[in-house]
């Protein structure tokens, strides 16, 4: 029964991961990361259900908080670099290499 949710979370995680790999826009990339975090949340909740304890639910809350904090930091960084480069493409930021 819970397997469906797990499969879904796995799918979401995979989608997020692929998204990070294929999308150029920093914001979108970042959103894909958030998607992965949420996939995790789904998994936590599912397992909480499976194991019949609430830890998973609680963890999900923690994760949301952390994700929120991450958003703040992330947007700040992305905005700064956007202001400098007038582009939010992660591929433009490739001075550091080799």
């Amino acid at each position, binding site marked *: 029964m819970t397997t469906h949710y797990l499969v879904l979370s796995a799918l979401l995680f995979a989608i997020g*991961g692929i998204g*990070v*790999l*294929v999308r*150029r826009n920093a914001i979108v*990339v970042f959103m894909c990361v958030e998607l992965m975090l949420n996939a995790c949340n789904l998994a936590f909740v599912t397992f909480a259900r499976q194991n019949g304890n609430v830890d998973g639910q609680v963890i999900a809350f923690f994760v949301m908080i952390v994700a929120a904090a991450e958003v703040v930091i992330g947007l700040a960084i992305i905005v700064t670099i956007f202001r400098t480069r007038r582009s939010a493409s*992660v*591929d433009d*930021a*490739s*001075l*550091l*290499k*080799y």
Partner: protein
Amino acid sequence: MEPAEILSHAGGGAISLAWLMIVLPLAGAAILLIGGRATNKWGHLLGVLMSVGAFVVAALVFFQLIGLDPAQRRQSVNLYEFIPGVANIGLLIDPLSISFCLLITFVGSLIHVYSIGYMSHDPDRRRFFAYLNLFVAAMLLLVLADNYVALFIGWEGVGLASYLLIGFWQYKPSAAVAAKKAFVVNRVGDFGLLIAMFLIFAQFGTLSYAEVFPNAAQASQGVQTAIGLLLLLGACGKSAQLPLQSWLLDAMEGPTPVSALIHAATMVTAGVYLVVRSGAAFFPEGSTAGLVVTIVGVATLLAGAIIGTAKDDIKKGLAGSTMSQIGYMMLAAGIGPAGYAFAIAHLITHGFFKADLFLGAGSVMHAMNDEVDMRRYGGLRKLLPITFATFFIGYLAIIGFPLLSGYFTKDGIIESVMHHNAILGWLAVVGAGITGFYMTRMVVMTFFGPKRWDEKAHPHESPAVMTWPLIILSVFSVGLGAYLILSNRLMVFLGPAVGLPAELPGFHPFSVPGLTTLALVAVGAGIAIAKYGRSEVPVVQPRGSFLTVFARRDLYGDALNEALFMRPGQWLTRLAVFFDNRGIDGVVNGLAAGVGGSSGRLRKIQTGYVRSYALSIFVGAAVLAGAWFVVGTL
């Protein structure tokens, strides 16, 4: 009779002071070399003094020795421990070594004296005398050593001295090359000598004569032969025997007194000494090693003689004859106790008359401002009467003119070899004939006939300091042979050291071989006179027949060495150097370069695109998960 046992000297008398023989000239050399220019003024005198001093000591030791009962005449004097458990430095005083000592110090001293005059104009005369002293010291150590290690030190010491003296005029490239060649060729011989020592030590656990000789027989036949042959290789190097003869002729680059002392009278006979010394142990009568020695001897005596026939350079002619004469000694030394005495006797007389000849030649060169080409001599007997007289006596001695030294000793050798092996004997006779030819040729070209020298040269007799040694040497060249051979004086004297043959040989002046020898010598001399005395001698060397060229080019000995060793050697060297730089070092540097290169390529994977980094993480995660799965489910 077997050689007497070697006793350790109880002490007392001149014998316990024998070390002075070595130390005196050594000190002389040291003082002159370290003292430097300060000693220039009196250096040569010190040199002579030290050499004469050594002679005096030798004489004293000699008299103490003959005072002893024959069975007591082998005394070893231990000086000090050299290499603990391997060898000491010690002296062996016995008839054999003392005879050498007398020869070396006496002839040596005469040549020292002679050199005062001969080198008077040379700025480095002091250094010359230092080297001469060094040589005398080393040579004495060689013959006095009571074990092979000490002998080897002397052996190499004389080699060094010879190197230094051949290259004395080192600014002449020819001299420098000759010196190096002499040393290197000698090292080939030393190689043999060294291996012989290792083998002896592995066999007997010692290198001292006293312990090796008595037990030599216990070693297996093969080992004995091997040791013998290896020693022979060493002897060939020092004594310029085939196949290591090539250095001697070039060695004539050195000042003439050097040629007289080192490359005629003493050093080159060290090989004979080695064979005779080890003879009872490793070259017993009828042994394979002994046979090889005789063969080498005969081959060399013929080769030397043939070379001598074609040389126009008076010194090289004499050098060829030296080879040949040492060939005789080797031949005799190879046949065992019957020959030892004759070998040594010939060695001693040869020492005198060959030194006489060389110094005479030197006197001639001195007169002809260092011209050595006999074709530019001629008719010198009037201008250099003393030199001529002495040279002529030496000449008669060497060709074996009846009743002169060479006659007795060489004839003795031929006689004894005849009994041993007729073929070798007759070959030796032939050699004698050739000797007659080339020596006569030399005398005729130098002293007789019209003068062929150019105007600038105005020959003059040498000063007394040079002529007196000549006179003394020639006196000995006349009488010494008879003294040593008649009534087997030397043989009996040497008996305790080298053993005696079953029955002592008598002296048969009119034996077939003896007469034939005389006849052949006469013939040879006749031809020479006919060819060079009667007819005009061209000043420029004619091309000459194939045979002449063959002889002139030292029987192509050098060509052979070059083809066999030098060229391949140079090749090998170049190859090795290339291999080292490109091959081994190439691998090393290649490895380094490879790492660097891979680094240069690998760093490209760090593209700088964050998404590719993410990809590597993603893939890495997948791989890790997969790996975990594989490992976990195994």
